[in-house]
Structure formats: structure tokens, C-alpha cells
């Protein structure tokens, strides 16, 4: 019988924090600026410049640590990781090796196989590097230091994952928690969340870990899944052939769907870490930790429990709505105003999700306010506008967030409750469609639908379909 292998995976996840300024200087972290317009002597590594730590970065790191059940090192400091590369103007990266801000936590994930806790070894703060751009015209490289010094946290997991499915579930969970905290938008595609995968295989039932490789440049769930599968097979094949797995860093090529060993530097990596003498230690008091704890928003797991108790909406709706803090906020605020959780949920699950998908948008980009959504629901419930008009109005509110009542008024979309006008219109429709009227009277129920449609059309959509239905039946008797 062929040998059975177990895959052992640990992740190093880099998350770009949502701070407005860099970790050690007051330059903007805004994305996509003209090259080198967000730089200063600190983030370009000029001799004599001094880094000063951004307090917000410490607080975001603490918030993420607390939300992932980590302990906080109340005495923490920064170290220099030394290496030469043009993206790193100081020739060292400021990071935390010896006393990372958070340690020993974990998050619970759920896969088809059930629930499981993935341990977090540590979370440390560090700075991002600059961006290298290959020049197309000359054989040279151009360096943009706008990213240099952008604050990151690196979340190092324990080697607790056994499959790509667990890896994705873990990343999903981290992303959800961090987005809820507002500490980052955690987008893999845009690089605000980056995952390096450490993977080894071992014979099933054995304790000892195999030699691991590290894979970089994985910027989608698809790439991560394919890279894990490919690397697992590559390592098993080596072992089956009696060869050894070499501990190395491999780079994933998304187009070729293949990973290759990155050229090892002349020598083994020797970063010669030492404490950064420019940065003083961080001492975190119990009070400070408590302050951060008090400020934590209700996270998704707690929210779900509360939704089940407070709102009469389907479990599936609650799951989807709480996946995004923005949707959850919209739901809770609109419900607080109109007191109709089921209606609000329907607008979110239906039209909102449809428009998001159709337009390729993120929930954060939704413009409609809870107040205006609640108002739209009330207008519909009161029969002031009918269902199809409401959908049209919502589509515009979705991006422009105007007052639906005022809009319906201005555009003449309010349902006409004038019984006389409705009767006149229906009489005209019946006169124009004698065959349909006869069909209905002859027992063809379907003919009524056609007549309702004709009446709605004649009323320019502003009639109440229920009222039209009723009056038609009355006049056809």
C-alpha cells in the first residue's frame, strides 16, 4: 500500500494597517500616489534622521492581538533586520524579533470537517519596503519609496493547518476580524493582506515535522489553493524518490501555476538582528490594554448570537449580513429606525447584494444611509410607492443616497390613490382589450395578469398593483 502523507502548514500573514501615516514618520500612506511624493528623510533612510513611532499603529496591533486571543507583551521593543536590497533604503528593516507586541493567541475556524483552533504564535509590528519598478527602456530598476515605512503587522501562526481549505478558512477569519476592527481592509489582490505559506509533509502518524519550504507571492485564494496542492505533490514526489526536501523560499508564478526556488543569496540568510537604538521601548500598562478592550467593536461571532436572539430573520441572512461590518451596521441602524428587521434584511439580501455583485463593488462603497433605507421601507409599507418603483428608487439611492420621499415626489413616482382615475383607466384598458376581458370571463385566469400589466403601463407604474387587481375583478364581474 502506498504511504499516506499529512500536510503541515503554517502561515505568515502581513497586514497593512489603516493608519493615515507611516509607522515612523508623518508621511501619508495613501495608495497610488505619484512615485516618491510621500517620502521624507526618515522613510528614505537618510543618515541622521530619527524614527518616531505612530501610536495608532501600536493600538491597531493591540486591537488585533486582543481580538485573536493573544497576550500582550507589556514591555516590547523594535529590532533591526539587516539586509541589502534597493527596496530597503536603510539597509535594515525595523521589525520586532525578540519581544513582539502580541503572543500566544488563536482563532477558531470552521470547515466541512468541523471546528478547530489555529494557534497564533505572535504578532509583530514592522515597516513595509519600497516598490521596485523595472524600467522598460533602459536596463535598470526604478525605486519608489512611497510604500517604504507603511505600517504592517505580521501574524505568525502555529503549524496547525492541514489543508488548503483550513488555510482559506483561517485567512477568511483573520480578514473578517481585522476588517471589523477597522485596522485594515485586508485585500489579498491589492496587497493589503499577504500570506506566505510554510509547508512540509510527513508520513501520517509520525510526530516529527518534515523539512519545510516557504512560498511567497500568493495574492488570491485560488493561487494559495493551487500553490499548496502543487507544493504538497512536489514534496511527496521527492520523498518517494528517496530525495530530500530542501529548506528554501519559493516564488509562486500565478500565470504558469508553478513555484520555483528563489535564487539563494551567496550565503544563508544572516539578518544579524539587534535592538534598534533609535527607538525606545514600548511599555503597555494594564489601563491601556483595558482602554483598547473597551473600544473593541462587537465582533462577528458575538453579533451572530445576538441576531439570533433579537431579530426574527433567517440564519442564512444573519450569516451573510454579519460577514461585513458595513452591512451589519446598515442592517442594525435601519432596523432601529423602522423596526422591521425582516424587511431590512430583504433589501440587503436582495437588491443590495445584487447591485454589489453586478457592479463589482465592496460593501464599504455603499452610499445609501440607514435612515434613507428605513424611509424607503416605510414608504413602501404605507403604499406611498409600489414595489417596483421602490426598486428603481433604491438603485439610485444605492449610489447617491438621496431622500427617497423627496425623490419620488419630484419624479412623480408616488402611487396614485385616486380611485376615480384608476376606474377611468381600467375602463379604457378593458375597452381596448375586449378579447382578454372575454377570456377572463371565460375562465382564463391568466388574462387578468395581462390586464393588470396594461393598466400599470397606462398609469406609468404609479398604481398600487393590489388595488388594480381588485378593481379589475370588480369591473369584470
Amino acid at each position, binding site marked *: 500500500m502506498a504511504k499516506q502523507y499529512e500536510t503541515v502548514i503554517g502561515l505568515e500573514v502581513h497586514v497593512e494597517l489603516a493608519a493615515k*501615516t507611516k509607522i515612523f514618520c508623518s508621511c501619508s500612506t495613501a495608495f497610488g500616489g505619484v512615485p*516618491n511624493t510621500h517620502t521624507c528623510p526618515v522613510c528614505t533612510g537618510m543618515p541622521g534622521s530619527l524614527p518616531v513611532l505612530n501610536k495608532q499603529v501600536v493600538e491597531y496591533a493591540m486591537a488585533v492581538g486582543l481580538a485573536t486571543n493573544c497576550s500582550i507583551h507589556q514591555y516590547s521593543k523594535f529590532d533591526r533586520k539587516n539586509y541589502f*536590497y534597493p527596496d530597503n533604503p536603510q539597509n535594515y528593516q525595523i521589525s520586532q524579533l525578540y519581544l513582539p507586541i502580541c503572543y500566544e493567541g488563536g482563532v477558531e475556524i470552521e470547515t466541512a470537517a468541523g471546528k478547530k483552533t489555529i494557534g497564533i504564535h505572535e504578532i509583530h509590528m514592522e515597516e513595509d519596503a519600497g516598490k521596485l519598478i523595472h524600467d522598460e527602456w533602459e536596463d535598470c530598476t526604478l525605486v519608489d519609496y512611497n510604500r517604504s515605512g507603511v505600517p504592517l503587522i505580521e501574524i505568525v501562526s502555529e503549524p496547525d493547518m492541514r489543508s488548503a481549505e483550513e488555510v482559506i478558512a483561517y485567512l477568511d477569519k483573520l480578514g473578517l476580524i481585522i476588517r471589523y476592527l477597522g485596522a485594515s481592509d485586508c485585500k489579498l489582490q491589492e496587497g493589503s493582506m499577504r500570506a506566505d505559506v510554510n509547508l512540509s509533509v510527513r508520513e501520517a502518524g509520525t510526530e516529527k515535522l518534515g523539512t519545510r519550504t516557504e512560498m511567497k507571492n500568493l495574492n488570491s485564494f485560488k493561487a494559495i489553493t493551487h500553490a499548496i496542492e502543487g507544493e504538497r505533490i512536489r514534496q511527496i514526489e521527492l520523498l518517494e524518490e528517496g530525495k530530500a526536501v530542501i529548506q528554501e523560499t519559493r516564488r509562486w508564478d500565478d500565470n504558469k501555476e508553478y513555484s520555483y526556488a*528563489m535564487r539563494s543569496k551567496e550565503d544563508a540568510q544572516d539578518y544579524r538582528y539587534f535592538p534598534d537604538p533609535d527607538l*525606545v*521601548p514600548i511599555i503597555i500598562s494594564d489601563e491601556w490594554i483595558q482602554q483598547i478592550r473597551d473600544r473593541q467593536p462587537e465582533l462577528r461571532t458575538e453579533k451572530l448570537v445576538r441576531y439570533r436572539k433579537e431579530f426574527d430573520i433567517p440564519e442564512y441572512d444573519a450569516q451573510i449580513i454579519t460577514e461585513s461590518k458595513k452591512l451589519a451596521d446598515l442592517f442594525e441602524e435601519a432596523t432601529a429606525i423602522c423596526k422591521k428587521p425582516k424587511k431590512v434584511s430583504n433589501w440587503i439580501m436582495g437588491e443590495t447584494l445584487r447591485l454589489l455583485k453586478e457592479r463589482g463593488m465592496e460593501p464599504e462603497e455603499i452610499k445609501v444611509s440607514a435612515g434613507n433605507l428605513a424611509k424607503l421601507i416605510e414608504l413602501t409599507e404605507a403604499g406611498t410607492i409600489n414595489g417596483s418603483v421602490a426598486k428603481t428608487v433604491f438603485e439610485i439611492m444605492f449610489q447617491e443616497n438621496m431622500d427617497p420621499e423627496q425623490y419620488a415626489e419630484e419624479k412623480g413616482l408616488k402611487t396614485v390613490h385616486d380611485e376615480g382615475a384608476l376606474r377611468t383607466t381600467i375602463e379604457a384598458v378593458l375597452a381596448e382589450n375586449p378579447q382578454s376581458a372575454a377570456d377572463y370571463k371565460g375562465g382564463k385566469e391568466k388574462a387578468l395578469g395581462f390586464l393588470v400589466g396594461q393598466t400599470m403601463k397606462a398609469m406609468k407604474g404609479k398604481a398600487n398593483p393590489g388595488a388594480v387587481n381588485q378593481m379589475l375583478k370588480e369591473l369584470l364581474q
Partner: protein
Amino acid sequence: MANIISDETIEYVGILAKLELSEEEKQQAKKDMGSILDYIDKLNELDTAGAEPMSHVFPVNNVFREDVVVNGDDRENMLKNAPEQKDGAYKVPKTVEN
């Protein structure tokens, strides 16, 4: 001299520091590093059991900045520090990722 620095060590330190040393410089560096280590060895004469390693000279901690953008675009000035520049960027020899 109690500390003898090997040729391999000097070679390795040279690679890490990106220095190309002449034979003469290597010999001098071996001597200098040896005597630096000898000097540090003096610490062994002290009993440091129980002493916390010191990473900072001053008893200062928690020096923070508020998260407010203060720096504007100073690219022109910053690029004056570049040995070479092109299109508003620092120009360096071709650096391949892999």
C-alpha cells in the same frame, strides 16, 4: 591576542557588509576585530548573572507620534540625495526579483 579571527570569518563578514577587501585590508581587519573582541571579553571578569541586557542608554520609553499627516510632497529635495534619478524615481542597477 586571545581572539583569533579566521580567514573564513573575515570573508563572511565582508560578504554581509558588501565590502571587497584587499589582502592587506583583510589582515588589518582580522587584527582589529580580534582586539575588539579581546576588549569585550573584559566583561567576562564581571558577574552579570541576573543583570537585564540593556538595549537603550536612556531610561525613556513610550515616545509616540499622533497619526496625522504632516509631511507634504518634498520629492524634488529628496531626490537630490539620489546618486541617479529618472522619472521622479531613484535609479539603481537592474534588480531582478528571483
